[in-house]
């Protein structure tokens, strides 16, 4: 599905990997190692060198807005362009079900975005990205600010989307979460990406 060939940018050494349909790759690494740089380069938010293909089509042949709808990205601190939550969704009413599943209190739509908690905003940003039905989703610590119950809810929802074909590149600091959710685990340090060592993989 997503093919990455020698993708590089300042702070990221040439990186190649393949992410299959319905697959989840967990990405871990120390702060400042280049996790966010990699995700932003994949979402085409910053200039980068190398080749990225989606279902065999080179990125340059797909208009950037369309690329970002197909390859969604939810940053660790999602941005909001309006104080009204409904403005951020194509159809907020249809989000009631998924919002309930993510343990988001039903009253959020009446509050201003700046009054929502970090955890609420994080889950709402995930719903906002999913609403566009991406084929690949790049997640930067989607459960960072969440408690155990909400984390489990997010993982369950994403697992369901995965079974429908959604591919995930999931940045997490939590080793056990990486073991729970991912088929493969990557490690990045000082801009160099490598697949986690075999013995570490077997230990799971």
């Amino acid at each position, binding site marked *: 599905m997503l093919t990455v060939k020698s993708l590089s940018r300042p702070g990221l050494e040439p990186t190649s990997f393949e992410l299959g349909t319905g697959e989840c790759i967990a990405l871990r690494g120390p702060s400042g190692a280049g996790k966010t740089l990699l995700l932003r380069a994949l*979402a*085409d*938010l*910053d*200039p980068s060198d190398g080749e990225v293909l989606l279902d065999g089509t080179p990125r340059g042949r797909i208009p*950037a*807005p*369309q690329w*970002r*709808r197909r390859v*969604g*990205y*939810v*940053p660790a*601190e*999602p*941005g*909001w*362009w*309006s104080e009204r939550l409904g403005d*951020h969704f194509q159809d907020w009413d249809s989000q009631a079900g998924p919002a309930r599943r993510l343990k988001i209190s039903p009253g959020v739509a009446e509050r201003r975005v700046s009054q929502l908690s970090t955890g609420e905003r994080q889950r709402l*940003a995930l719903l*906002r*990205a999913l609403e*566009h039905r991406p084929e690949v989703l790049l997640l930067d610590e989607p459960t960072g600010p969440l408690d155990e119950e909400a984390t489990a809810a997010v993982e369950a929802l994403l697992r369901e989307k995965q079974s429908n074909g959604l591919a995930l590149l999931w940045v997490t600091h939590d080793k056990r979460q990486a073991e729970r959710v991912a088929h493969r685990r990557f490690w990045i340090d000082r801009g160099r990406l490598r697949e986690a060592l075999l013995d570490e993989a077997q230990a799971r």
Partner: protein
Amino acid sequence: MNYIQLDTWDLGLSALLLLGVAALSLVLQLKIEGKLLLAGLRCALQLALVGLVLTKLFELVSPLWTGLAALAMVLFAGREIMARQERGFRPLWAYGIGTSAMLMAAATVTVFALTTAVRPEPWYDPRYALPLLGMIMGNTMTGIALGLQRLTEGARQQRAGIEALLCLGATRRKALLPVTRQALTTALMPIINSLAATGLVSLPGMMTGQILAGVDPIDAVKYQLMIMFLIAGGTTLGAVTAVFVGLHRLTDARDRLRLDRLAGE
């Protein structure tokens, strides 16, 4: 026309006022006397020089020299726009965007006025062309400087929201529309305010000048109205051009927000 001509003594008397407040500053230890006197001196020298240059230009009525004087004004104004950018576009870009937008707007509006409404003979008569250009450009310059500054500042402050829109598939134009609107509102605020307050709060300098020179107030008002409309048109044209060119410079063909192209990044 009969008007009261000022001689050196009359000017000296009004300059005494400046000396008076400088003395006041000395007594009260406000330490503004130096700046005040220097600015007063600069003002006197610059205006005297302009007076000499204009006298010469008015005698010549040459398209070449009038054009050169206009060009010098545009280049000075471009420098002013560049100097007013704080952490905005890099100096050369600010100068390029500002000067070209201003040249386009001020030239269009001035030539339009000279060939339709005012119609002096010849149309480039510096007695009409240069004051018109000066008044239009002074305001257009402020509008462009404000618009560019607000655009870059807004893009920085609202980066997360803009990139969130881009991530959901918005084009660069759509993602930056709120910032574009803010930039143009800021750019046009002074001219909109002065259109609304003119006559009630302030009597415009040009109109006052004409009335002092003995022109019938109604005629002076007509001239002032035309100037105000020209200024509004020029400022809008210049600010819209500069903000849209700036918008392109702030983004790229892959619809990315390129804050790395700003100074201090």
